[in-house]
Structures are given as structure tokens and as C-alpha cells.
């Protein structure tokens, strides 16, 4: 029973960062129809920026996370402007290949700048875990959970409550009509990609200090992000948030009760299963955003 509770708690914490990753990707796919293979690299980028600012430059840890998220947003905007803005309306394979190219470039740039040796980022939290009854949780993980939840709520507010969010939802529903209503589609696409990238960078910035930071950390992250997005239904933000938690649960229980070697395989099996049974995603009636 204690073990079960502990697994549930771990899944909740891991799931919150997975949800961040998934929401970013589902935004980008839902609104732009771009299968963003570089998504995992924005995740890696976020982790390396925290390393750069908090370890190399000695900036305050919390500030380093904020800087990493902001830089992730900026990098996303640059990548969108440079690579995708000229391919509006191109078929899905074209933009996918461009993003695979971007992925290769970004990953090897990280390898070049920081070498393949894993980096670790110390966190300014007490070593002793917080113990409640029979389950215990490290303060660092609790911090990650709180931050990720705040960011998810923030993203949700942005989509539901702001003019930009409204314009994004309109673009998602009908690009042509939204454009006729005076929405600058190019700006929406730029904002969408920047926001999605920023969320990925945030996930990396939060998880990097808990695990280790290596250039290839994005490879699994991107495929897991796809798994989450498929679970929730492409373009469905609430679905992506739920999908993140479902994936984390499946992984945590798969690793705990089946075999830890197959931890990462659980997500893929889940994808295959979901697509066979309900290709539109577990939580979707139809594709929608918001």
C-alpha cells in the first residue's frame, strides 16, 4: 500500500512536467499543423540554460529558471521565423523534415558547446525529504511539481482569458475566417511556436536539475511528448495535461511492478494501443483546443 502511494506521488510529480511538454507540443501541432521534432531540443535547451546561468555564471537558481524559459521563448520565435514562416500551408512532411533538420543541428550544437559529458545542477533545497506518514518526497521534486502546475495554469489562463489566447483559438478553429476577422496569422503562429517552445524549455529547466543534463536528453522527451499528445488527442490542451499524468502513471507502475528496463517502452506501447483503439485520443470527442 505504501509502495502504491509512493508510486502515485512520483507519477504525479513526473506527470506535471510531462504535461508541460505535451501542452507545448499540442499547441504547435493543433494551431500550426507542424509535427515539431525539435520540441525535445527546446527541452534540452532549457536544462542547459539553467546549467549555464546557475552553475557557470552563478546566477540565483530561481532566476536562472526564469531566464531559461524566456530564452526558450525567444529561441522558439527565432526558429519559427527562420525555418517555418516561409512554409505556411506546406504539407506536413515538409515542415516535419525541416524540424528534423533543426533537431539534428540543435542537438549537435549542444554537444559541441557542452560536450557529451553529463552535467548536474545543484538545487538550493534541503537534503532531507519531506515525509508525510509513510511516503516521502524530496523538496526539489515538490518544487518542480508546484512550478509545473503554476505554468500549466498560466498557459490555460493565457489561452482562455487573453486576447492572444482568443486569437489562437480562433486560428485553430478556422484559419481563413480568423484571418478575415483581422487576426494577424503570422503573429499567431510565431506566438504559438514561441509559447510551445517556452513550455518545453520550462519542462527541461525544471527536470534538468532533478536528473542529469546531457545533449541527448531531448530524444526520449520528444517521443514521450508525442505519446502524451496522442493520448490526449492532437490539439487538445486539457487532454495533453491529462495525457502527461497518464503516461507518468503507466511508466511509474510499469517500472515498479513489471520491469524497470521497459520503463521507457511503456509510453510507446501506450501510443500503439491508443491509436489502435481510439485514434482521436482518449479524452477527445473531436480535435479541439482549449
Amino acid at each position, binding site marked *: 500500500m505504501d509502495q502504491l502511494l509512493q508510486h502515485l506521488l512520483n507519477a504525479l510529480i513526473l506527470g506535471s512536467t510531462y504535461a508541460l511538454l505535451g501542452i507545448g507540443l499540442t499547441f504547435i501541432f493543433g494551431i500550426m499543423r507542424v509535427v515539431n521534432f525539435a520540441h525535445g531540443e527546446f527541452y534540452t535547451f532549457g536544462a542547459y540554460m539553467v546549467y549555464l546561468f546557475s552553475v557557470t555564471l552563478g546566477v540565483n537558481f530561481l532566476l536562472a529558471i526564469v531566464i531559461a524559459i524566456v530564452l526558450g521563448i525567444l529561441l522558439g520565435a527565432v526558429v519559427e521565423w527562420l525555418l517555418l514562416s516561409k512554409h505556411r500551408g506546406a504539407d506536413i512532411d515538409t515542415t516535419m523534415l525541416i524540424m528534423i533538420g*533543426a533537431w*539534428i543541428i540543435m542537438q549537435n550544437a549542444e554537444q559541441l558547446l557542452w560536450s557529451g559529458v553529463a552535467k548536474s545542477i545543484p538545487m538550493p533545497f534541503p537534503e532531507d525529504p519531506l515525509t508525510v506518514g509513510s511516503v516521502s518526497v524530496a523538496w526539489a521534486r515538490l518544487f518542480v511539481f508546484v512550478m509545473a502546475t503554476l505554468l500549466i495554469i498560466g498557459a490555460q489562463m493565457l489561452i482562455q482569458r487573453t486576447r492572444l489566447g482568443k486569437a489562437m483559438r480562433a486560428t485553430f478553429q478556422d484559419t481563413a475566417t480568423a484571418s478575415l476577422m483581422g487576426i494577424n496569422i503570422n503573429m499567431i503562429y510565431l506566438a504559438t511556436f514561441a509559447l510551445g517552445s517556452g513550455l518545453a524549455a520550462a519542462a527541461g529547466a525544471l527536470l534538468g536539475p532533478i536528473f542529469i543534463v546531457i545533449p541527448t536528453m531531448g530524444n526520449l522527451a520528444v517521443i514521450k511528448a508525442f505519446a502524451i499528445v496522442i493520448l490526449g488527442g492532437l490539439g487538445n490542451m486539457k487532454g495533453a495535461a491529462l495525457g502527461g499524468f497518464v503516461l507518468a502513471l503507466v511508466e511509474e507502475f510499469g517500472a515498479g511492478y513489471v520491469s524497470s528496463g521497459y520503463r521507457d517502452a511503456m509510453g510507446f506501447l501506450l501510443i500503439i494501443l491508443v491509436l489502435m483503439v481510439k*485514434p482521436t485520443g482518449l479524452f477527445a470527442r473531436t480535435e479541439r483546443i482549449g
Partner: protein
Amino acid sequence: MSNISKWVIVLLLATVPLWVTNQYQLHILIMMGIFTIGAMSLNLLLGYTGQLSLGHVAFFGIGAYTTSLVSLGFDLKLTEDYTFVFAPKPAWFGVICAIVVAGLCGWFVGKLSFRVRGAYFVIVTISFAEVIRLVALNWVDLTEGPMALNNIPSLAFTIPWADSAALSRRIANYYLVLAVAVISSIIIQRLVQSRIGRTMVALRENEALAKSVGVDVTRSLVLAAVVSAAIAGAAGALYAHYVRIVDPDVFLFIYTVTMVIMVIAGGKGTLAGPLVGGVIFGILPELMRGHMLPEVQWIAYGAIMILIVFFLPEGIVPAVQRWWAGFQRSRQSKMNPHSRANKASPREAAQ
């Protein structure tokens, strides 16, 4: 390209070991050939049916593992007191098994994944490859996991004129790769020029329309997947018997990306495309190797890929064909302004 010029090229390629005796250069040619076969098989799916399979390396790896296990033999503890022992079989038998097993996997994946299209299809295929990689990594009893399968028997026969055993082995492998490449390209050519090949192109162009005129979409897609997987499996088997060590890294996504780049750069949906792409992207890394760090080399690879999508979206072969056709037309009209009417098709002549 006419049939004769194709056979001339094959004959020229067959003479290569007579004048290339540098082992390193032969090695590059062999590896290039193996990946070109992989690219050709991917082109059948990506180019002709229009389905971007990003899990193609799974079939390559399954072929490599199957032939290695068959030719090395393995024992599998099924229950506490029963162990299934598989005695080593000859290498050529392993290759046949590799082709069959990879083809069966292609059938299975095809049945499974062709229910979905577009982004979903891509993700199912990637997931399949990742699951297979994790199985190869974790099923240590069978695959030795990260310790790799070693000492895989070589397929090589003795080449009488080779000076050393090592050179003989390379030359023999070169001929094997060439033979498999020729056979594969004949199979692919026959297939895409047949009725089934036309149904593949039809559903690539407009699936709803193809369905409405009675094309059994799933059947042609699954057939393409089986043939494609079997050829990729053969390439993987050649790889295993040539390199003689197979570890879970054969399933790395970057190999799929390499094959995709070869197909896209050369020109998807053309028979010559993957060959041209395979030659360029087989040799390019070797040319760059001495001059730059591997990371820089990969960055250049990614940049080239993006540039090709930007500036040569159809690929090199269609671009050259169009340029050549335009060049021919302008030359003819300069030399003899009237000849065009004679050579033009009846419809053009009527205009």
C-alpha cells in the same frame, strides 16, 4: 534511363574492386551500398505510397538480429526445466530468415499502423522502432543487450585474386551488396511499374478518389510495407555479416534519418533518387570526416537537409531531369526550329 545504360552502370560497378584496392575506400563503398539498399526500400513507402515511415530502421535491425541469432544459434530458457536450444545454422540460411522475419514484421506493422495516416502514422512507426530497440536492449538472454552479439560468421567467399584474406572479405562483401542492390531495384521497379504500383501512386495522390474507383488501399499499402521491410531486412543482414557485431544501436533513430535524407535529397518517388541520394550522403560524411569535428559534420548534415527542403523540395533527380529536358528543348529549337513539331507528341503537334 534505358535498360542498357542501367546494365552498363551495373557492369561498371562490378569492375570497381579491380581498380579500388584500398580497403578503407572499399569499406565506405560497402557501407554506402548497404544504406542505399535501405533507402531504396524506404522509397517504396515514402516515395510511392506517400507514407513517411520513421521507424524504418526497425526492419533493418530486425534483419541484422535475426540473421545473427540464426547463424550463431541461441538458447532460450522457456520454463524452469525446459530450455529451447537453437543450433547454429549456415549464414545464408540466416539471411533468408532475416528477409522472411523482417517481411512478417512489415506485414504486422502495416496492418497495425495503416489504420492511421499523417502525423499519427509517423508516430506509430517511431514508437514501433523504439519498442524494438528497448526489447533488444533489455532481453539480454536472447540478444546479449548492450554487450552485443559478437563474432557473427562472415558471408564472404574467397576472391582468388585478392592479396590478403581481409581484402578478399571486403571484395566479396562488395559483390554481395551489389547483387542485393540490383535484385532489390529490379523488384522495386517491377512492383512500381505494375498495376499494384499504380494503385500505390493513386492513393498517394488522392486516397479518397483511389478508394472510390475500387482500389483496395490497405492491401496495396500492406504489400508495399512487406516488400519494403523485407528489403530493409536483407540490408540489415548484409550489415550484420559484414560488420560482424550487432548491438541495440543499430536501431538508433539517426539511421532512419539518414535513409530519409537519402530518399528526400535524391528525389522520392523516383527509382534513381535513392541511389543518387545514397551515393551523395554515403560519401559526404567521409569527405567531411577529416576536416571537421563529428558534431560540426552532423550540423552540416542537418543544414543540408533543411536547405534541400527549402530549395530542392522534389529532390535532385527530378530537378536534374527537368533541367536536362529544358536544355534539350532549347538546343533543339536553336539547331533546327522545325524539328520540334516533328518530335512533339500528337497533341502538341495538333495545337
